[in-house]
């Protein structure tokens, strides 16, 4: 059942990424819905489940853009895995903690992407990364509130 909710969340976020993300930029920063959903859902999944979720998010994101899937799959799967692993730190899942986790992991995931894909204009990429991290951090709070009931996160 949990898997079904994750699939549904990925689908909804793929639609938001495709339709809404380019139109809700704030000071040039735009959210990364697929990375966000893989991080937030991974907070309530096992590490292997999170890696699969991240893998799927990477495939969807790369496919929608028409890009090389490898960089997206690797960076998203690793980010989701680290998100699931971070629960071992046993921090309390307050709204602030979720926001900070999402922002930090967004930076982590995009840096991984940068290392593997090597985009041109690294300064611009890093600027975008900071903006996206803040945006994702803010959006993580309502998304976690929506998803936590269905995902029922467990602390290992």
């Amino acid at each position, binding site marked *: 059942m949990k898997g079904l909710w994750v699939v549904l969340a990925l*689908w909804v976020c*793929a*639609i938001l990424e*495709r*339709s*809404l993300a*380019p*139109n*809700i930029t704030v000071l040039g920063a735009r959210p990364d819905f697929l990375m966000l959903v893989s991080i937030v859902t991974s907070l309530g999944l096992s590490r292997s489940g999170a890696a699969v979720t991240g893998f799927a998010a990477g*495939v*969807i994101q*790369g*496919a*929608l*853009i*028409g*890009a*090389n*899937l490898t960089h997206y799959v690797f960076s998203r799967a690793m980010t989701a895995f680290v998100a699931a692993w971070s629960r071992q730190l046993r921090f309390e899942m307050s709204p602030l903690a979720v926001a900070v986790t999402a922002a930090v992991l967004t930076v982590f995931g995009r840096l991984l992407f940068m290392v593997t*894909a090597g*985009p*041109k*204009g690294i300064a*611009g*990429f890093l600027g975008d990364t900071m903006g996206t991290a803040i945006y994702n951090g803010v959006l993580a709070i309502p998304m976690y509130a929506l998803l936590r009931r269905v995902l029922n996160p467990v602390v290992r």
Partner: protein
Amino acid sequence: MQTTSRMAGRTDFVSGVVKTTVDPVALPIATVAQSFHDFRLGLFKSGSLIEENRRLRALAQAAELYGGRLQALETELEEVRKLAKFAESVGKIRIPARVVHYAPLENRLTINAGSDRLVRQGLPVIAGEGLVGIVQTVDAKTAQVLLLSSPPPFKIGAKVLRDPPAFGLLHGEAADRLSVEFMEANTPIENGDWVVTSGFSEQIPANIPIGRIVQVRRDEEFGTRVAQVFPAVQIGRIRDVVVLR
């Protein structure tokens, strides 16, 4: 699998499945979201938009005056081409499309015109200011456009508007920087020169603006000359494009 499909101008199987699942819902929402976005921008920029609207009306009226003359000249030119047994000129049919997704990191954008509107791989995509990119893969209702800012191996023929013109190969370096390589180290080019398409292609017509040269340097190692070009089209701002077929 992905590279093979891309070379053939098709979307690979996995990407096809994802797009089929997401696009039917996402594209209508994107249109509505864009309208809201435009409305929001309109509220803050109404003054400049009114001024721009006046200017565009004046330009449209001026263009109308020349429309008939242009049509007559095009017909005449086509007849001359037929008489001289030249190949049919390209870029006659214009397919309007809207940008539905822009991925700056991947140097790609998605437009809402696909094989249903006879878009095919390799066709040039232009905006008001000049060349945007080349169609890379085509689906039924959408197409992926590879932007001019794409790094090699993507290259297109370019021409510097001088007398005589200088020809070179253009590729992307960054979103706001393109590069043209000239085989001769002494090619006479200068900052501020306009770069346009060379026309040495079956699908890309000549003289579509690309950008202006902002820097010229000599590559001593290879004995070539390289020009940095600032693109005419600011990709992040465009919403409407035209595919030339």
